[in-house]
Protein backbone atom coordinates (compact mmCIF):
# COMPACT_ATOMS: atom_id res chain seq x y z
CA UNK A 1 0.00 0.00 0.00
CA UNK A 2 1.43 3.33 -1.03
CA UNK A 3 1.26 5.74 1.85
CA UNK A 4 1.75 9.43 1.23
CA UNK A 5 4.80 11.06 2.73
CA UNK A 6 3.43 13.68 5.06
CA UNK A 7 4.69 17.19 4.35
CA UNK A 8 3.44 20.71 3.80
CA UNK A 9 2.98 19.76 0.12
CA UNK A 10 0.80 16.75 0.87
CA UNK A 11 -1.33 18.91 3.17
CA UNK A 12 -1.70 21.60 0.48
CA UNK A 13 -2.45 19.05 -2.24
CA UNK A 14 -5.16 17.46 -0.11
CA UNK A 15 -6.56 20.86 0.82
CA UNK A 16 -7.01 21.59 -2.91
CA UNK A 17 -8.80 18.34 -3.60
CA UNK A 18 -11.07 18.33 -0.58
CA UNK A 19 -9.08 15.85 1.51
CA UNK A 20 -10.23 12.94 -0.63
CA UNK A 21 -6.76 11.51 -1.16
CA UNK A 22 -5.76 10.51 2.38
CA UNK A 23 -5.19 6.80 2.82
CA UNK A 24 -5.28 4.71 6.01
CA UNK A 25 -2.00 5.17 7.87
CA UNK A 26 -1.46 1.43 8.34
CA UNK A 27 -2.84 -1.83 6.94
CA UNK A 28 -5.11 -4.20 8.81
CA UNK A 29 -3.60 -7.54 7.79
CA UNK A 30 -4.72 -11.06 8.59
CA UNK A 31 -2.18 -12.88 10.77
CA UNK A 32 0.23 -15.11 8.85
CA UNK A 33 0.97 -18.68 10.00
CA UNK A 34 4.39 -17.74 11.34
CA UNK A 35 6.76 -14.82 11.86
CA UNK A 36 10.41 -14.48 12.80
CA UNK A 37 9.57 -12.09 15.63
CA UNK A 38 6.29 -11.45 17.43
CA UNK A 39 5.87 -8.46 19.71
CA UNK A 40 3.01 -8.93 22.17
CA UNK A 41 1.40 -5.58 22.96
CA UNK A 42 0.59 -2.79 20.49
CA UNK A 43 1.27 0.12 22.80
CA UNK A 44 3.99 2.72 22.41
CA UNK A 45 6.79 0.40 23.50
CA UNK A 46 5.67 -2.56 21.36
CA UNK A 47 5.20 -0.45 18.23
CA UNK A 48 8.51 1.36 18.78
CA UNK A 49 10.23 -2.00 19.20
CA UNK A 50 8.78 -3.29 15.94
CA UNK A 51 9.78 -0.10 14.14
CA UNK A 52 13.40 -0.15 15.35
CA UNK A 53 13.68 -3.90 14.68
CA UNK A 54 12.77 -3.24 11.06
CA UNK A 55 14.66 0.01 10.61
CA UNK A 56 17.79 -0.17 12.77
CA UNK A 57 18.35 -3.91 13.02
CA UNK A 58 17.21 -5.00 9.54
CA UNK A 59 14.82 -7.64 10.79
CA UNK A 60 11.85 -8.76 8.72
CA UNK A 61 8.76 -10.94 9.19
CA UNK A 62 7.68 -9.05 12.30
CA UNK A 63 4.19 -8.88 13.81
CA UNK A 64 2.76 -6.78 16.62
CA UNK A 65 -0.17 -8.50 18.32
CA UNK A 66 -2.59 -6.36 20.28
CA UNK A 67 -5.65 -7.55 22.19
CA UNK A 68 -7.57 -4.30 21.68
CA UNK A 69 -6.70 -1.47 19.33
CA UNK A 70 -3.27 0.10 19.13
CA UNK A 71 -2.70 3.02 21.44
CA UNK A 72 -5.75 2.15 23.54
CA UNK A 73 -3.79 1.31 26.66
CA UNK A 74 -1.33 3.31 28.72
CA UNK A 75 0.18 5.18 25.76
CA UNK A 76 -3.19 6.91 25.47
CA UNK A 77 -3.67 7.35 29.22
CA UNK A 78 -0.55 9.12 30.46
CA UNK A 79 0.12 12.81 31.10
CA UNK A 80 2.45 13.15 28.05
CA UNK A 81 5.52 14.40 29.93
CA UNK A 82 9.03 13.64 28.66
CA UNK A 83 12.20 14.35 30.65
CA UNK A 84 15.52 12.77 31.59
CA UNK A 85 16.14 14.26 35.03
CA UNK A 86 17.19 11.08 36.78
CA UNK A 87 19.79 10.59 39.51
CA UNK A 88 21.17 7.06 39.33
CA UNK A 89 23.82 5.88 36.86
CA UNK A 90 21.62 2.96 35.72
CA UNK A 91 18.86 5.36 34.71
CA UNK A 92 20.40 8.58 33.34
CA UNK A 93 22.00 7.23 30.12
CA UNK A 94 18.83 5.35 29.24
CA UNK A 95 16.44 8.26 29.70
CA UNK A 96 18.87 10.62 27.98
CA UNK A 97 18.97 8.26 24.98
CA UNK A 98 15.19 8.46 25.02
CA UNK A 99 15.29 12.27 25.16
CA UNK A 100 17.64 12.36 22.16
CA UNK A 101 15.38 10.01 20.22
CA UNK A 102 12.38 12.23 21.04
CA UNK A 103 14.29 15.20 19.63
CA UNK A 104 14.69 13.51 16.25
CA UNK A 105 11.53 11.43 16.27
CA UNK A 106 9.26 13.42 14.02
CA UNK A 107 11.72 13.57 11.13
CA UNK A 108 12.61 9.94 11.67
CA UNK A 109 9.06 8.59 11.45
CA UNK A 110 7.63 11.38 9.26
CA UNK A 111 4.84 12.06 11.71
CA UNK A 112 3.88 15.12 13.71
CA UNK A 113 4.08 13.92 17.30
CA UNK A 114 3.93 17.49 18.62
CA UNK A 115 7.22 17.14 20.50
CA UNK A 116 7.35 20.32 22.57
CA UNK A 117 10.46 21.01 24.67
CA UNK A 118 8.72 23.47 26.93
CA UNK A 119 10.79 22.66 30.04
CA UNK A 120 10.19 20.60 33.16
CA UNK A 121 10.49 22.48 36.46
CA UNK A 122 10.70 20.54 39.75
CA UNK A 123 10.18 22.83 42.74
CA UNK A 124 11.98 22.59 46.06
CA UNK A 125 10.58 23.81 49.35
CA UNK A 126 13.35 23.40 51.93
CA UNK A 127 17.13 23.64 52.28
CA UNK A 128 17.45 19.87 52.41
CA UNK A 129 15.44 19.48 49.23
CA UNK A 130 17.57 22.13 47.54
CA UNK A 131 20.68 20.11 48.34
CA UNK A 132 19.08 16.96 46.97
CA UNK A 133 18.11 18.78 43.76
CA UNK A 134 21.60 20.28 43.42
CA UNK A 135 22.98 16.75 43.67
CA UNK A 136 20.52 15.49 41.08
CA UNK A 137 21.34 18.38 38.75
CA UNK A 138 25.08 17.68 39.14
CA UNK A 139 24.53 13.99 38.41
CA UNK A 140 22.62 14.92 35.27
CA UNK A 141 25.29 17.36 34.07
CA UNK A 142 28.04 14.81 34.68
CA UNK A 143 26.15 12.61 32.21
CA UNK A 144 25.80 15.44 29.70
CA UNK A 145 22.15 16.19 30.47
CA UNK A 146 21.01 19.80 30.81
CA UNK A 147 19.99 20.94 34.29
CA UNK A 148 19.68 24.36 35.92
CA UNK A 149 19.21 25.01 39.59
CA UNK A 150 16.98 28.08 39.95
CA UNK A 151 16.52 30.27 42.98
CA UNK A 152 13.21 31.76 44.03
CA UNK A 153 13.56 34.90 41.87
CA UNK A 154 14.32 32.85 38.77
CA UNK A 155 11.31 30.58 39.36
CA UNK A 156 9.18 33.67 39.95
CA UNK A 157 10.11 35.07 36.57
CA UNK A 158 9.08 31.79 34.91
CA UNK A 159 5.87 31.04 36.80
CA UNK A 160 4.87 34.12 38.79
CA UNK A 161 1.45 32.82 39.78
CA UNK A 162 2.59 30.05 42.17
CA UNK A 163 1.94 30.33 45.90
CA UNK A 164 5.54 31.22 46.80
CA UNK A 165 4.82 32.20 50.39
CA UNK A 166 2.70 29.21 51.30
CA UNK A 167 2.84 29.01 55.11
CA UNK A 168 3.64 25.30 55.20
CA UNK A 169 5.58 24.72 51.95
CA UNK A 170 7.11 27.99 50.70
CA UNK A 171 8.80 27.71 47.29
CA UNK A 172 12.56 28.29 47.51
CA UNK A 173 13.45 27.47 43.91
CA UNK A 174 13.50 24.65 41.41
CA UNK A 175 15.49 22.34 39.19
CA UNK A 176 14.79 23.03 35.54
CA UNK A 177 15.40 20.78 32.56
CA UNK A 178 14.71 22.97 29.55
CA UNK A 179 14.89 20.09 27.08
CA UNK A 180 12.07 18.27 28.87
CA UNK A 181 8.49 18.88 27.86
CA UNK A 182 5.48 17.12 26.42
CA UNK A 183 4.67 14.97 23.40
CA UNK A 184 1.26 14.21 21.94
CA UNK A 185 0.87 10.64 23.26
CA UNK A 186 -1.63 9.23 20.75
CA UNK A 187 0.47 10.53 17.87
CA UNK A 188 3.43 8.57 19.21
CA UNK A 189 1.50 5.30 18.92
CA UNK A 190 0.07 6.23 15.51
CA UNK A 191 3.37 7.52 14.17
CA UNK A 192 5.31 4.43 15.18
CA UNK A 193 2.50 2.20 13.85
CA UNK A 194 2.55 3.93 10.47
CA UNK A 195 6.34 3.89 10.24
CA UNK A 196 6.54 0.22 11.26
CA UNK A 197 3.77 -0.74 8.84
CA UNK A 198 5.60 1.02 6.00
CA UNK A 199 8.57 -1.24 6.70
CA UNK A 200 6.42 -4.34 6.44
CA UNK A 201 5.49 -4.98 10.07
CA UNK A 202 2.07 -6.63 10.43
CA UNK A 203 0.02 -4.88 13.10
CA UNK A 204 -2.68 -7.29 14.19
CA UNK A 205 -5.36 -5.72 16.33
CA UNK A 206 -8.19 -7.36 18.28
CA UNK A 207 -6.08 -10.46 18.72
CA UNK A 208 -5.47 -11.53 22.32
CA UNK A 209 -2.56 -13.77 23.23
CA UNK A 210 -3.95 -16.62 25.34
CA UNK A 211 -0.83 -18.75 25.75
CA UNK A 212 2.91 -18.65 25.09
CA UNK A 213 3.81 -21.90 23.36
CA UNK A 214 7.08 -23.61 24.21
CA UNK A 215 8.76 -26.82 23.20
CA UNK A 216 11.74 -28.12 25.14
CA UNK A 217 12.36 -24.79 26.85
CA UNK A 218 12.25 -22.87 23.57
CA UNK A 219 9.62 -20.53 22.17
CA UNK A 220 7.64 -21.81 19.18
CA UNK A 221 4.90 -19.18 19.02
CA UNK A 222 1.78 -17.86 20.69
CA UNK A 223 -1.78 -19.09 20.95
CA UNK A 224 -4.19 -16.26 20.27
CA UNK A 225 -7.90 -15.62 20.03
CA UNK A 226 -7.37 -15.91 16.25
CA UNK A 227 -5.45 -19.17 16.37
CA UNK A 228 -1.82 -20.26 16.74
CA UNK A 229 0.89 -18.01 15.29
CA UNK A 230 4.40 -19.42 15.08
CA UNK A 231 7.50 -17.39 15.98
CA UNK A 232 11.19 -17.90 16.65
CA UNK A 233 11.33 -14.99 19.05
CA UNK A 234 8.61 -13.40 21.17
CA UNK A 235 9.00 -10.04 22.88
CA UNK A 236 6.43 -9.13 25.53
CA UNK A 237 5.75 -5.40 26.07
CA UNK A 238 2.43 -5.29 27.90
CA UNK A 239 3.15 -3.12 30.95
CA UNK A 240 0.17 -3.16 33.29
CA UNK A 241 -0.55 -6.79 32.48
CA UNK A 242 3.01 -8.16 32.50
CA UNK A 243 2.42 -10.56 35.38
CA UNK A 244 -0.63 -12.08 33.68
CA UNK A 245 1.05 -12.55 30.32
CA UNK A 246 4.36 -13.83 31.69
CA UNK A 247 2.47 -16.26 33.95
CA UNK A 248 1.48 -17.99 30.68
CA UNK A 249 5.16 -18.89 30.38
CA UNK A 250 5.33 -19.92 34.03
CA UNK A 251 7.26 -16.85 35.21
CA UNK A 252 6.66 -14.94 38.43
CA UNK A 253 7.77 -11.30 38.27
CA UNK A 254 8.94 -8.69 40.78
CA UNK A 255 5.93 -6.59 39.78
CA UNK A 256 2.55 -5.53 41.17
CA UNK A 257 -0.19 -3.86 39.11
CA UNK A 258 -1.42 -0.56 40.51
CA UNK A 259 -3.79 2.13 39.28
CA UNK A 260 -2.64 5.70 38.61
CA UNK A 261 -5.17 8.43 37.97
CA UNK A 262 -4.85 11.42 35.66
CA UNK A 263 -7.01 14.47 35.17
CA UNK A 264 -7.76 17.10 32.58
CA UNK A 265 -9.63 20.37 33.07
CA UNK A 266 -11.80 22.33 30.69
CA UNK A 267 -9.88 24.27 28.05
CA UNK A 268 -8.61 27.67 29.12
CA UNK A 269 -6.35 30.26 27.53
CA UNK A 270 -2.56 29.71 27.69
CA UNK A 271 -1.71 29.66 31.37
CA UNK A 272 0.98 27.11 32.26
CA UNK A 273 3.88 27.29 29.77
CA UNK A 274 5.92 24.26 30.79
CA UNK A 275 5.60 21.32 33.12
CA UNK A 276 5.61 22.22 36.83
CA UNK A 277 5.87 19.71 39.66
CA UNK A 278 5.19 20.31 43.34
CA UNK A 279 8.03 19.16 45.57
CA UNK A 280 6.15 18.93 48.83
CA UNK A 281 3.43 16.58 47.72
CA UNK A 282 2.95 14.65 44.54
CA UNK A 283 1.41 16.87 41.90
CA UNK A 284 2.47 17.70 38.36
CA UNK A 285 0.76 19.88 35.79
CA UNK A 286 1.10 20.99 32.21
CA UNK A 287 -1.27 22.50 29.67
CA UNK A 288 -2.19 20.69 26.49
CA UNK A 289 -2.16 22.49 23.16
CA UNK A 290 -5.95 22.26 23.24
CA UNK A 291 -5.92 24.30 26.47
CA UNK A 292 -6.83 21.72 29.08
CA UNK A 293 -4.73 21.53 32.23
CA UNK A 294 -3.35 17.98 32.42
CA UNK A 295 -2.35 16.91 35.89
CA UNK A 296 -1.85 13.96 38.18
CA UNK A 297 -0.33 12.78 41.41
CA UNK A 298 0.20 9.60 43.39
CA UNK A 299 -0.87 6.05 42.77
CA UNK A 300 -4.03 4.96 44.54
CA UNK A 301 -1.70 2.70 46.47
CA UNK A 302 -3.29 -0.74 46.32
CA UNK A 303 -3.12 -3.56 43.78
CA UNK A 304 -5.60 -3.00 40.97
CA UNK A 305 -6.47 -4.19 37.49
CA UNK A 306 -9.43 -1.77 37.36
CA UNK A 307 -8.80 1.22 35.08
CA UNK A 308 -10.45 3.61 37.50
CA UNK A 309 -9.40 5.13 40.80
CA UNK A 310 -10.89 6.16 44.10
CA UNK A 311 -11.91 9.48 45.59
CA UNK A 312 -9.33 9.91 48.41
CA UNK A 313 -6.57 10.25 45.79
CA UNK A 314 -8.64 12.69 43.73
CA UNK A 315 -8.91 14.82 46.86
CA UNK A 316 -5.18 14.47 47.58
CA UNK A 317 -4.18 15.49 44.04
CA UNK A 318 -6.50 18.50 44.08
CA UNK A 319 -5.16 19.60 47.48
CA UNK A 320 -1.64 19.45 46.04
CA UNK A 321 -2.76 21.55 43.10
CA UNK A 322 -4.37 24.16 45.34
CA UNK A 323 -1.26 24.38 47.53
CA UNK A 324 0.91 24.96 44.46
CA UNK A 325 -1.22 27.24 42.30
CA UNK A 326 -4.37 28.46 44.01
CA UNK A 327 -5.52 30.00 40.71
CA UNK A 328 -6.65 26.66 39.34
CA UNK A 329 -9.29 26.38 42.08
CA UNK A 330 -12.07 27.70 39.89
CA UNK A 331 -11.19 25.71 36.79
CA UNK A 332 -13.63 22.87 36.27
CA UNK A 333 -12.49 19.28 35.94
CA UNK A 334 -13.41 17.83 32.58
CA UNK A 335 -12.28 14.23 32.74
CA UNK A 336 -10.52 11.84 35.09
CA UNK A 337 -9.32 8.35 34.30
CA UNK A 338 -7.05 5.55 35.51
CA UNK A 339 -4.37 3.38 33.97
CA UNK A 340 -2.77 0.20 35.23
CA UNK A 341 0.94 0.44 35.98
CA UNK A 342 3.52 -2.31 36.22
CA UNK A 343 4.97 -1.26 39.58
CA UNK A 344 8.30 -3.01 39.95
CA UNK A 345 9.89 -3.67 43.33
CA UNK A 346 12.54 -0.95 42.94
CA UNK A 347 10.64 1.53 40.79
CA UNK A 348 12.79 0.86 37.71
CA UNK A 349 12.01 -1.03 34.50
CA UNK A 350 13.12 -4.40 33.16
CA UNK A 351 14.36 -5.06 29.61
CA UNK A 352 15.88 -8.52 29.52
CA UNK A 353 15.96 -12.10 28.32
CA UNK A 354 14.01 -14.67 30.30
CA UNK A 355 15.00 -18.20 31.30
CA UNK A 356 13.03 -19.39 28.26
CA UNK A 357 15.00 -19.41 25.02
CA UNK A 358 13.53 -16.90 22.56
CA UNK A 359 11.28 -15.13 25.07
CA UNK A 360 12.14 -11.52 25.89
CA UNK A 361 10.54 -9.25 28.45
CA UNK A 362 10.01 -5.48 28.59
CA UNK A 363 8.01 -4.12 31.52
CA UNK A 364 8.00 -2.75 35.04
CA UNK A 365 7.75 0.82 33.78
CA UNK A 366 5.99 2.08 36.91
CA UNK A 367 4.65 5.45 35.92
CA UNK A 368 7.63 6.53 33.83
CA UNK A 369 6.84 4.51 30.74
CA UNK A 370 5.76 7.17 28.29
CA UNK A 371 8.95 9.25 28.32
CA UNK A 372 10.91 6.01 27.85
CA UNK A 373 9.01 4.90 24.72
CA UNK A 374 11.69 5.50 22.04
CA UNK A 375 14.63 4.20 24.08
CA UNK A 376 12.60 1.28 25.36
CA UNK A 377 11.75 0.29 21.80
CA UNK A 378 15.32 0.85 20.64
CA UNK A 379 16.97 -1.14 23.45
CA UNK A 380 14.38 -3.92 23.32
CA UNK A 381 14.83 -4.23 19.55
CA UNK A 382 18.61 -4.37 20.10
CA UNK A 383 18.17 -7.15 22.64
CA UNK A 384 15.80 -9.18 20.45
CA UNK A 385 17.81 -8.78 17.25
CA UNK A 386 21.30 -9.27 18.64
CA UNK A 387 20.53 -11.21 21.82
CA UNK A 388 22.85 -8.81 23.66
CA UNK A 389 21.93 -6.02 26.00
CA UNK A 390 22.10 -2.41 24.76
CA UNK A 391 24.64 -0.44 26.86
CA UNK A 392 22.08 2.20 27.85
CA UNK A 393 19.75 -0.46 29.29
CA UNK A 394 22.44 -2.63 30.83
CA UNK A 395 21.17 -2.11 34.38
CA UNK A 396 17.61 -3.27 33.68
CA UNK A 397 18.21 -6.94 34.40
CA UNK A 398 15.45 -9.28 35.48
CA UNK A 399 17.74 -10.93 38.04
CA UNK A 400 18.94 -7.69 39.66
CA UNK A 401 16.68 -8.30 42.68
CA UNK A 402 18.39 -11.63 43.37
CA UNK A 403 21.88 -10.20 42.87
CA UNK A 404 21.28 -7.03 44.90
CA UNK A 405 21.65 -4.57 42.03
CA UNK A 406 18.32 -2.81 42.42
CA UNK A 407 17.91 0.72 41.01
CA UNK A 408 15.83 2.42 43.66
CA UNK A 409 15.60 6.02 42.42
CA UNK A 410 13.23 7.04 45.21
CA UNK A 411 14.87 5.02 48.00
CA UNK A 412 11.67 3.30 49.04
CA UNK A 413 12.68 -0.35 49.24
CA UNK A 414 10.59 -3.23 47.90
CA UNK A 415 7.22 -1.48 48.25
CA UNK A 416 5.70 -1.05 44.78
CA UNK A 417 2.90 1.23 45.99
CA UNK A 418 5.42 3.80 47.30
CA UNK A 419 7.62 4.25 44.23
Amino acid sequence: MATTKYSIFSVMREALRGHTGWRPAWRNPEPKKAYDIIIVGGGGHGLATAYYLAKEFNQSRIAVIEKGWIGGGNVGRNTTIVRSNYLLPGNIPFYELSMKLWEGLEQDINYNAMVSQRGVLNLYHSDGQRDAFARRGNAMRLHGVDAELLDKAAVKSLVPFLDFDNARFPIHGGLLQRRGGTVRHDAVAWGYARAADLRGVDIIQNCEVTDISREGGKIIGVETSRGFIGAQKVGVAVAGNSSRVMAMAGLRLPIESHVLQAFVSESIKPFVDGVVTFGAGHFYISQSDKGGLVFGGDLDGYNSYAQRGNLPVVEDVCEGGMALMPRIGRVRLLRQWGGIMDMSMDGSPIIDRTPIDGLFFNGGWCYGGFKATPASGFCFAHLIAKNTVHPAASAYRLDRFATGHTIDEKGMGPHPNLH
Partner: protein
Amino acid sequence: MRIQCPCCGERSLDEFTYYGDASVTRPNAFAPTAMSDYHAYVYQRDNRDGDHRELWYHAAGCHACLVVTRNVRSHIISDVRIAREVARERDAAALPGSTS
Protein backbone atom coordinates in the same frame (compact mmCIF):
# COMPACT_ATOMS: atom_id res chain seq x y z
CA MET B 1 -14.06 1.66 48.20
CA ARG B 2 -14.89 1.12 51.88
CA ILE B 3 -13.59 -1.54 54.23
CA GLN B 4 -15.71 -3.31 56.84
CA CYS B 5 -13.37 -3.28 59.84
CA PRO B 6 -14.26 -6.08 62.31
CA CYS B 7 -13.71 -3.65 65.20
CA CYS B 8 -14.97 -0.32 63.85
CA GLY B 9 -17.52 -1.15 61.17
CA GLU B 10 -17.53 0.15 57.59
CA ARG B 11 -14.94 2.89 57.16
CA SER B 12 -13.54 5.00 54.33
CA LEU B 13 -10.42 3.91 52.49
CA ASP B 14 -8.37 6.91 53.62
CA GLU B 15 -8.42 5.68 57.24
CA PHE B 16 -6.31 2.70 56.17
CA THR B 17 -2.70 2.18 55.11
CA TYR B 18 -1.91 -0.50 52.55
CA TYR B 19 0.75 -3.06 53.45
CA GLY B 20 0.64 -5.24 50.35
CA ASP B 21 0.20 -8.89 49.48
CA ALA B 22 -0.88 -11.03 52.47
CA SER B 23 -0.25 -14.33 50.74
CA VAL B 24 3.52 -14.27 51.18
CA THR B 25 4.93 -15.42 54.53
CA ARG B 26 8.39 -14.91 56.00
CA PRO B 27 10.51 -17.99 55.24
CA ASN B 28 12.77 -19.90 57.59
CA ALA B 29 16.08 -18.04 57.68
CA PHE B 30 18.00 -21.21 58.52
CA ALA B 31 16.75 -23.37 55.65
CA PRO B 32 19.37 -24.29 53.04
CA THR B 33 17.20 -22.55 50.42
CA ALA B 34 16.86 -19.35 52.52
CA MET B 35 18.51 -17.14 49.87
CA SER B 36 16.03 -17.96 47.11
CA ASP B 37 13.13 -18.22 49.59
CA TYR B 38 13.78 -14.67 50.77
CA HIS B 39 14.15 -13.40 47.22
CA ALA B 40 10.72 -14.80 46.42
CA TYR B 41 9.27 -13.47 49.69
CA VAL B 42 10.59 -9.94 49.32
CA TYR B 43 10.42 -9.41 45.57
CA GLN B 44 8.23 -11.85 43.64
CA ARG B 45 4.46 -11.63 43.48
CA ASP B 46 1.74 -13.63 41.73
CA ASN B 47 -0.09 -10.37 40.93
CA ARG B 48 -3.11 -12.22 39.56
CA ASP B 49 -6.31 -10.75 38.30
CA GLY B 50 -9.32 -11.56 40.53
CA ASP B 51 -9.35 -12.10 44.29
CA HIS B 52 -6.32 -10.76 46.14
CA ARG B 53 -5.49 -11.24 49.84
CA GLU B 54 -3.86 -8.10 51.17
CA LEU B 55 -2.93 -6.35 54.40
CA TRP B 56 -4.55 -3.08 55.43
CA TYR B 57 -3.62 -1.28 58.66
CA HIS B 58 -6.42 0.72 60.26
CA ALA B 59 -4.17 3.68 61.08
CA ALA B 60 -6.94 6.22 61.77
CA GLY B 61 -9.08 3.72 63.68
CA CYS B 62 -8.48 0.72 65.90
CA HIS B 63 -4.87 0.13 64.71
CA ALA B 64 -5.69 -3.45 63.79
CA CYS B 65 -3.91 -5.03 60.87
CA LEU B 66 -6.46 -6.67 58.59
CA VAL B 67 -6.32 -9.38 55.96
CA VAL B 68 -8.76 -8.22 53.28
CA THR B 69 -9.84 -10.38 50.35
CA ARG B 70 -10.66 -8.01 47.51
CA ASN B 71 -11.28 -8.49 43.82
CA VAL B 72 -8.68 -6.28 42.14
CA ARG B 73 -10.87 -5.65 39.10
CA SER B 74 -14.26 -4.96 40.72
CA HIS B 75 -12.97 -3.84 44.18
CA ILE B 76 -15.64 -6.07 45.78
CA ILE B 77 -14.42 -7.10 49.22
CA SER B 78 -15.49 -10.64 50.09
CA ASP B 79 -13.73 -11.13 53.42
CA VAL B 80 -12.08 -9.07 56.17
CA ARG B 81 -10.30 -10.71 59.10
CA ILE B 82 -7.91 -9.59 61.82
CA ALA B 83 -4.40 -10.42 60.64
CA ARG B 84 -3.28 -11.81 63.99
CA GLU B 85 -6.02 -14.45 63.93
CA VAL B 86 -5.15 -15.41 60.36
CA ALA B 87 -1.48 -15.77 61.32
CA ARG B 88 -2.29 -17.86 64.40
CA GLU B 89 -4.44 -20.25 62.39
CA ARG B 90 -1.75 -20.54 59.74
CA ASP B 91 0.95 -21.26 62.32
CA ALA B 92 -1.26 -23.79 64.09
CA ALA B 93 -1.81 -25.58 60.79
CA ALA B 94 1.91 -25.51 60.01
CA LEU B 95 2.96 -26.85 63.44
CA PRO B 96 0.53 -29.57 64.57
CA GLY B 97 0.14 -29.61 68.35
CA SER B 98 1.09 -25.95 68.74
CA THR B 99 -1.52 -23.63 70.23
CA SER B 100 -0.05 -20.20 69.45
